[in-house]
Every structure is written in structure tokens, then in C-alpha cells.
């Protein structure tokens, strides 16, 4: 018996796919063996998404063939794929915001299932895999992390033989990641293969049995991540050597830029988090990292800091001025800059192009000439600079924001805010869904403006990111903020203890 064929669950051979002149997939062949976790590594725009969309039946390849369970496999739609046993968890959540979590799970199923039966199996799944979700809450009221749990449950409930996961951990905390890894390993040991897309090289080393690396639409090779360092893997992925940003040099204690005191702020929605007893200060040339599990008040804190939500129980002092009653525009005018978590629809307007998206957050009216005319040459130059400096992959400054991939739009948004040369930059999840090299670039840019004197509040669920570049760290738990501590003084097990309060 040929062992190799016996072990192969899924195979694709010489897959080609072109969009206009762009070759998204160029002669791609991969081989996923059963009960394995197979990583698909590559930068934004390397062609990973195109490939998995072909496997999931959302796109048809121009040429090439696939086999699944030793049979010809050519799904015409995701329904076909699911019927044959291929499931997928998307990077951009494919959830309906006005529907409840339960309805979202229901609508993703292909067969009619009794409501009670479904409820039972969802609860079973969420318990055995640690995917906690309030089934009756509306998706619109859930945080990114919670939404992802809904998506994972929705995929798992169909008992797929091959599960595609498009950057599943990008919004999870280390604890959640660990429990997810347990889930995935358990699934793999039970016979499900997982095609795992990620930029996070460390977790690929921890988790995956094999890694196929994609660069510019073509396969570079197949590697054993357990036998390589994350750095080596990353360098194969980007085709050049990687660097690690260093945290800004010690802060200048005498120049307090911002201090925030919050007694209590109630949420706007039923499922929001109440902010309590928050007391933080950030100094010149200092990065204050705020960590914590998704849905512990990050969104609410961000809204208070940006001025989208004004509340009498908040006191915000910015360079000796009380600014708690200023709106976001007024705060921007005096030197603050913000990059909220949600890129499309919050940080950028999807139906406007990149030029216009630069223009709308232009507090200092740099691009405005006399009588309200727009200075297009200045605006063009500024936007092109962002695209170049942050390596934003786009067709040009007149591309719609919605046409950019998530990671690329994120690079653009962060670049646009940093380009304003703010005295205080508040950013939520700056590198979510951004590949390794670009993430390092973004972190470096944040460090750079800190080194030139800006104060930074970095809210992130990526603990590594926070520990890498923050001078001080604090953690959000149920709307409470721990006392900021020097990053150098903090120990990993202490973080566990601080964040541990979250799970109960």
C-alpha cells in the first residue's frame, strides 16, 4: 500500500488564478495530510486568501485540479465545499451584525436542525473547546474576539474533515490562543486536518506540523516549522531579513502629556462594559501599553479617549487643559491622533478613496488653500508618502478604501495618523491582520514618533507586541485598569495573575 497517498487528505495541483494582470496564484501545489495542522504562510497579498477561497468554492481556478479524500474535488460554491467536509473561519468576519450569535450559527448550517438540538450541540462545543459565547447577544454588540468564537463554533458544528482557518488568533489573547491551540490539536488528533493561515510565526512553530510558504503568488517551499526558528521562517516568507523594533528610550518623567481619571462610565449597549476606577497617565516619549482580553472595555475606553463618548464622570487632562468635553475633531486639532480598531467604517470610509480618507482627518487644515479649495498636490504627496513608507499594497491614491485588504488598510490608517505628527497618539490594535514585516514597520514607526517626543497609548490584545515596545503596561479586566507597571519589571507569570481575573 502506498502510504503517502493513503495519508493525503487534500491535494491541489498547479492552481492558477489571475485577476486582470495580477497573477494571484501561480502554479500552486500543496498537499495536506490527514490529522495534520498545515500552515499556509505568506505576507499580505501573497495569494493565501485567493487559494483558500478556491478551496472553499468561493472562487474557481483558471486552471489546475484538486483532490479531496482521493476524489476529484471542484466545489462550485461554499455549499458544495461544506457538504464534502471543508469548513472555513474567515479573516474578515462573515457574520450578520443585526442577528444574534445563535441565528448566525443557524444560518451557516446547510441542513435544518432542531433549535433545541442545535442549542445543545453549540453549548457542548463551546464548553469542550472553551469557546464562551452569549448565544442571545447580537453580533453588533460583540467584540472582535467574541465574534471570532462565534465563527469558530459555526465552522466546527458541521464537523469538517478539513478546516481552513484564516488568521484565527489575530484578536485572541495568549490564554485564548492556548485554549484554541488545544482545540485545534484535539481536532487534529480526532482526524480533522487544519489549513492554518497566520502571520504569527511563533504560534506556527508551536502548533503546525508542516508549513507551506507563499511569496508573490507562488509556493516557495514546504518546511517543518518545528525544526526552524520563527525568524528563519519569517525571513523565508518575506524574502529578506527581519528586524525587531526597540522600545523608545526612557521617558521624560517631567512632561506629562495626558492623564485620565474615570470613576465610572456606563456602556451604551446592553452588552457593553462599564469602565471603573481607571487612572492612567502617559508622558512624553513614552509608550503605555494596555493589554487584556477582547471585550473587557478596550472599545469603551477608546471611545472615551477619542471623545466619541463624553461623560461627566471622566476627567482628561491634556498638557494642563481639561479636554473631556471636547469632541474628536477638537481633540485632533490640539494634537491628538487616533486609530480605532475597526478599520472600515470607523477608521476609514470605505466608499471614499485614499486621498479623501487622508483629507477627512486633517485637523491642521494642511491640505486646505484659501477659500476652501483643496490643495491636491500637497494631498497627493502626503498620501503617496504613506503608501510608500508603510508599504501599502494598492492600485494608487484613487483606490477606494474598501478595495484594500484589511492589513493594507490598517497600514494606511496608522500611516495617516502618524503622518499628522501628533503629540499624543492613541491606537487600538495597530497590527491586527498585518503580516510580520509590515507589523514590524508599524511598530517601528510608532517607536519613532515616541522617540521624537510623542506620547503613545497602545491598546492591543497582542501581548508580544505590548511587551516588545511599551515602556509601561496595564491590563483591562472587566472595565478595570490595573496600575501601570514598568515593562522591564513585569514577569510573565504576573501577567497571568493580573489577567487571570478575567476568566471568572
Amino acid at each position, binding site marked *: 500500500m502506498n502510504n503517502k497517498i493513503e495519508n493525503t487528505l487534500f491535494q491541489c495541483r498547479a492552481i492558477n488564478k489571475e485577476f486582470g494582470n495580477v497573477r494571484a496564484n501561480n502554479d500552486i501545489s500543496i498537499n495536506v495530510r490527514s490529522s495534520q495542522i498545515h500552515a499556509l504562510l505568506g505576507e499580505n497579498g501573497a495569494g493565501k486568501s485567493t487559494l483558500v477561497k478556491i478551496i472553499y*468554492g468561493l472562487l474557481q481556478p483558471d486552471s489546475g485540479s484538486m483532490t479531496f479524500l482521493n476524489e476529484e474535488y471542484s466545489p462550485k460554491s461554499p455549499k*458544495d465545499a*461544506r457538504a464534502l467536509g471543508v469548513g472555513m473561519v474567515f479573516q474578515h468576519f*462573515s*457574520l450578520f451584525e*443585526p*442577528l444574534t450569535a445563535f441565528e448566525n450559527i443557524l444560518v451557516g448550517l446547510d441542513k*435544518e436542525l432542531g433549535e433545541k438540538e442545535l442549542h445543545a450541540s453549540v453549548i457542548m462545543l463551546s464548553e469542550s473547546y472553551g469557546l464562551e459565547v452569549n448565544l442571545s447577544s447580537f453580533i453588533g454588540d460583540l467584540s472582535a474576539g467574541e465574534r471570532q468564537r462565534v465563527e469558530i463554533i459555526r465552522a466546527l458544528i458541521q464537523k469538517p474533515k478539513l478546516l481552513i482557518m484564516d488568521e484565527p488568533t489575530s484578536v485572541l489573547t495568549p490564554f485564548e490562543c492556548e485554549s484554541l491551540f488545544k482545540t485545534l490539536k484535539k481536532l487534529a488528533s480526532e482526524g480533522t486536518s487544519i489549513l492554518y493561515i497566520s502571520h504569527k510565526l511563533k504560534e506556527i512553530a508551536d502548533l503546525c506540523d508542516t508549513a507551506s510558504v507563499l511569496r508573490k503568488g507562488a509556493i516557495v517551499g514546504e518546511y517543518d516549522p518545528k525544526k526552524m526558528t520563527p525568524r528563519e521562517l519569517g525571513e523565508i516568507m518575506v524574502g529578506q531579513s527581519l528586524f525587531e523594533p526597540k522600545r523608545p528610550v526612557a521617558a521624560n518623567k517631567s512632561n506629562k502629556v495626558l492623564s485620565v481619571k474615570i470613576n465610572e462610565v456606563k456602556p451604551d449597549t446592553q452588552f457593553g462594559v462599564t469602565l471603573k476606577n481607571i487612572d492612567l497617565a502617559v508622558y512624553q516619549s513614552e509608550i503605555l501599553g494596555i493589554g487584556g482580553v477582547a471585550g473587557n472595555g478596550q472599545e469603551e475606553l477608546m471611545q472615551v479617549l477619542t471623545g466619541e463618548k463624553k461623560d461627566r464622570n471622566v476627567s482628561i487632562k491634556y498638557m494642563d487643559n481639561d479636554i473631556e468635553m471636547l469632541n474628536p475633531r477638537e481633540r485632533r486639532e490640539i494634537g491628538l491622533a487616533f486609530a480605532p480598531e475597526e478599520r472600515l467604517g470607523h477608521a476609514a470610509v470605505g466608499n471614499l478613496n485614499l486621498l479623501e480618507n487622508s483629507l477627512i482627518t486633517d485637523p491642521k487644515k494642511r491640505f486646505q488653500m484659501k477659500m476652501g479649495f483643496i490643495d491636491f498636490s500637497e494631498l497627493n504627496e502626503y498620501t503617496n508618502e504613506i503608501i510608500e513608507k508603510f508599504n501599502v499594497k494598492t492600485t494608487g491614491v484613487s483606490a477606494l478604501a474598501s478595495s484594500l485588504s484589511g492589513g493594507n488598510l490598517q497600514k494606511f490608517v496608522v500611516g495617516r495618523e502618524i503622518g499628522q505628527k501628533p503629540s499624543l497618539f492613541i491606537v487600538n490594535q495597530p497590527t491586527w491582520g498585518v503580516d510580520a514585516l509590515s507589523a514590524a514597520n508599524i511598530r517601528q514607526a510608532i517607536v519613532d514618533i515616541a522617540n521624537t517626543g510623542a506620547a503613545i497609548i497602545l491598546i492591543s490584545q497582542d501581548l508580544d507586541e505590548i511587551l516588545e515596545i511599551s515602556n509601561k503596561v496595564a491590563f483591562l479586566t472587566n472595565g478595570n485598569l490595573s496600575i501601570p507597571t514598568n515593562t522591564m519589571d513585569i514577569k510573565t507569570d504576573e501577567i497571568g495573575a493580573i489577567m487571570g481575573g478575567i476568566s471568572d
Partner: protein
Amino acid sequence: MDLSEINFAVLVASLIVASTPLVLAALGELIVEKSGVLNLGVEGMMIIGAVTGFIVGVETGSAYIGMMAAAMAGALLSLLFAFIILIMQANQVASGLALTIFGLGIAALMGHPYTGIKSPQISTISIPFISEIPVLGTMFFQHDLIVYLSLISVLVIWYFLNRMRAGLILRSVGEDHDVAHSLGYRVVTIRFLAITFGGAMAGVGGGYLSLVRVPQWTEGMTAGAGWIALALVVFSGWRPFRLLIGAYIFGGITILQLNLQAIGVNINIALLSMAPYLATILALVVISMSRFRGNRGAPGCLGRSFVKIT
């Protein structure tokens, strides 16, 4: 003026009859909008239903066959709309308006020879025993088949939208067609079906107007009923039972003002005739400024064209 001349039971019974075309057309539009499509052609589809139903009813001598023809005519016209907006991806608002204008015109042309003829009768079905109950029986249980059907439709559509998987799929297509597509649902097919259903319901509503409510054919006889139906969908917050209540309030005001005119109340007739429309505007204003704001009724993709992204 003598208010005691108005018989309350008869008033309620006739307000139900007056509201039925609205209930039917608005329920159809509710389904269309839940699928994410805004069809402003309700008035056009209603009047096409009215004229076709009337012609077929007169020619065959059966109001029921007429009613079926009305449904088919409405559905047929809506297919034209579906083709324009789903296949050609034209703007929904402009296409819907064009549909109304087209419907009004072609109905006038078709109906011209039939002006002033009396339509075949549709019989009243008294429900045994409970129709004997004084007052209540007269109000609710001595109606024709279509009235009962309209009430059952409210129930069925509520059940469909809130308790059935197919209804959930329809709603998800309306909320976010990109996501629905990525899950493998056929957005265009589902919308085609929804639009056709909406057309058929508007057609029946129109047929009911010309065959039962009036009953004869006059040019432009829908007199804005299609627009009221559209407003009712918004008024109801896309909920079937609230839609029924809204339709009956509107029908009630219409009937009441007719009765007031009949007994010679000392209010200008123009003002009285205006009352139902004024009430509609008022209700819409109140709803959009009060606590209903930001409710979850309006489908997320309402009025947006679906373009497949690759």
C-alpha cells in the same frame, strides 16, 4: 350632525375591508425589503393587478379567477423590475419609480374599455357560530375569503421570518449580501423570489380594490395606496403584526372620514379626505424621532445593488 348614525360594528367591518389591499401589498413589500431590495413600484404593480383582475373577472365571470390573474399580473411586472435591478444592476429607486409610472400608464390603456362596468360578486363567508356573536361577529367574521387570507398571511409571514430557516436566510441576504454570498447563499435567486412574491401580493391587493372594495374600474383608482403600503412597512419597523395594526389605523381613518362626510360633519371635505395621508406622515415622523430610532428593523443592505466580488 348625529354621531349615533354611525354603526360601530359596521364601521369596523368596513375598515377591515378598506385596509385589506394595504395589508396585502405592504406584506409583499415587507418580504421584498427584508431581502434587501427597495421596490418603489408597489403602486404600479397594484394598479396592474387591479385592471387585470377586473378584466379577467368580468370576462370569466369569476372574481376568484380575476384575483389570481391580478396576482400573476403583479408578479409579471415585478419580474421586469427584478431583471432591471438584479441582472442589469440598475438603481433601485429610479427603477421602482419607473415601474410605478409604467404601471399607471399601461393600466389606463388596458382598462379604458372596461370603465363603468360592474364586476362579478365575491361571496361573503360567514364563519359558523362565531359570526352570530352580536357586534363582534359583524366586525370580524362575516368577510370574504381574501380578508381571511390576508390575516392568515400576517401570521404565516411572521412565522416564516422569525421561526423558519428559510426566513432567516432571507433576512441574512437583506442584512449583508456579501456575507450571505460568502456563505454560499444565492443572493440574486433569493431576491428574485422575494420580488416576485412582493409583486404577486401587490397584484392581489390591487385586484381586491377593483373587484371587492370599489368594485369597478376607474383610471388611477389605487390613489396612492401603493405609497401608503410602502410607508406602512417603515411604520411597522419591518414587523408583520405592527404592519397590520398600522394598516387598520390607516383604513380606520379613511372609513371614519367617509362616514363623517356622509353624516355631514361641519369640516371641509378636502381636509377630511386629507386625514389618512396626514396621519401617515405624522406616524412616520413620530416613529423616526422617538425611541424607535436605531431599531433593528431596517435591513442593512436595503436598496443596495449586489455586485459579486471575486
